[in-house]
């Protein structure tokens, strides 16, 4: 059977392979190479070794964006997962109207980042108007604005995943704990939480990478104002590329560093939670 299928390689694999090569493999390899070059387009690239990378360190905006992004990621991962889990717990208790609530909470997720950014800039600027400030007054406002926006967008999505996880906890397990005289808190801590560990893994992974790679919302909400202080890493890379002439190489080097950071997060998170799941 293998052989029969094998001859059909051009029909089954070739289209995807060609597009994948053009859309991912080639740009990725060119990207790595360009990070060691000085260039404005691909054709005029000249090799200059590691100097793009050393320039990153002296560029204050990147270091600032790195801290800002890390802090933002930690805060939003905690907030989103805490509230999503709490709502999921309550909504699995057969409350009237559960379906409607679920529908409402999930809805913002389908709206694109650019739209969300402008929707929230209207609302948050309106609130800040009461104290005669705007979102771009300081990077602290931009920070919490982004956190609130991300909570609004992502809580529904994570809630759905948590609900699916909680519903998979076998009922007799909870029953047995109740008969043994466990309090609600003990059931949550010793039965539900360990049983939904896979959902927690998925949700932390999704929120981690979503927050760390956030771009559209950042662009629409504050555009990095005031003076690049509310810039997340992705936006910092973008504005280095397209906002500063002669810095294309540094932008590409930043992108490589960014990729390595995302890779490290993805791999560590996977290894750590895998280990936890096996222990059960």
């Amino acid at each position: 059977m293998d052989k029969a299928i094998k001859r059909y390689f051009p029909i089954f694999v070739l289209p995807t392979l060609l597009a994948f090569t053009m859309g991912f493999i080639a740009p990725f390899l060119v990207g790595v190479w360009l990070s060691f070059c000085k260039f404005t387009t691909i054709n005029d690239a000249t090799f200059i070794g590691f100097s793009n990378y050393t320039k990153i360190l002296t560029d204050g905006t990147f270091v600032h964006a790195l801290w800002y992004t890390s802090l933002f990621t930690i805060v939003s991962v905690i907030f989103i997962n805490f509230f999503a889990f709490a709502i999921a717990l309550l909504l699995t208790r057969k409350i009237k109207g559960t379906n409607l609530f679920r529908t409402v909470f999930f809805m913002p997720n389908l709206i694109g980042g650019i739209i969300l950014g402008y929707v929230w800039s209207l609302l948050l600027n309106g609130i800040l108007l009461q104290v005669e400030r705007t979102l771009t007054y300081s990077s602290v406002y931009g920070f919490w604005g982004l956190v609130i926006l991300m909570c609004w967008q992502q809580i529904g999505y994570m809630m759905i995943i948590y609900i699916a996880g909680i519903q998979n906890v076998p009922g007799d397990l909870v029953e047995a704990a109740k008969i043994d005289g466990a309090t609600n808190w003990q059931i949550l801590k010793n039965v539900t939480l360990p049983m939904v560990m896979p959902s927690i893994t998925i949700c932390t992974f999704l929120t981690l990478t979503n927050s760390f790679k956030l771009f559209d919302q950042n662009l629409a909400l504050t555009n990095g104002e005031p003076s690049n202080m509310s810039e997340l890493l992705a936006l910092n890379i973008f504005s280095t590329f397209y906002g500063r002439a002669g810095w294309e190489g540094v932008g590409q080097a930043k992108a490589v560093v960014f990729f390595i950071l995302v890779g490290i997060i993805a791999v560590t998170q996977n290894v750590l939670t895998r280990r936890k799941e096996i222990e059960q």
Partner: protein
Amino acid sequence: MGKKNAAQNMAMTIFFSLLSILWLCPIALVVLNSFKKKAYISRRPFAIPTDKMFVGLENYINGIEKTGFFEAFGWTLFITIGSVFIIILCTSMCAWYIVRVKNTFTSIFYYLCLFSMIVPFQMVMFPLSKIVNMLKLNTPWGLIIVYLGFGAGLSVFMFTGFVKSIPLEIEEAAMIDGCTPIHTFFDVVLPIMKPTCVTVAILQTMWIWNDYLLPYLNLDMKRFKTVSIAIQYLRGGYGSIDMGAMMGVLVLAIIPIIVFYLFCQKYIIEGVVAGAVKG
């Protein structure tokens, strides 16, 4: 005990009702402001539009004219539907081949797909836009191919996960009956893969419909726009925004999404859960 529970449930229902209303506030606020005069939107965003502030549909007309909204909407629809269709067709075929024909090449390809899932777009955006320009793919038709390339990783991964669970006997029976691999795939394998197709379609639609950076960098914007680009376009060169037009366009962009969501809610939520479990 029963009474106490009922009271508790009632309290919960009220609490969540309030929270739901709060949840919808940002959108309601945009709708409210879309009927106000420009000057009042940023100065008095929470006021109910009175006679003096009310402008009727002016903001909508203005926004549509400034951004070419309907054209942008049409292109976004075209790109999304085209890409999702092509992605499902090509990657499902590809995934089946990868699982059924095991050699070094297919396993390398599989691992490259996994790898591509953790690479952020910023890593490839500059070279990709140059390659796209060189190959003259900077049209909506070309963009479909770009999406197939950049979206292949996740889809191939999800389809291979499913194909591995299909028992080989079914396909072998079809082949012994004289089916070519193409017939076997389309008549036997693809129908079994339907649930995964729906999941992939939903995840890709959510991504492609809302994507901003990829079309922004790769489309020839003098001729084509997408909805996200049209909205961002309203932020003028110096950061000044025509708030009236913005509100109108935001409402126009949000309404179709909500309508679509209300109709396909069940599939979307199931798709998200299924996608998360495999991803």
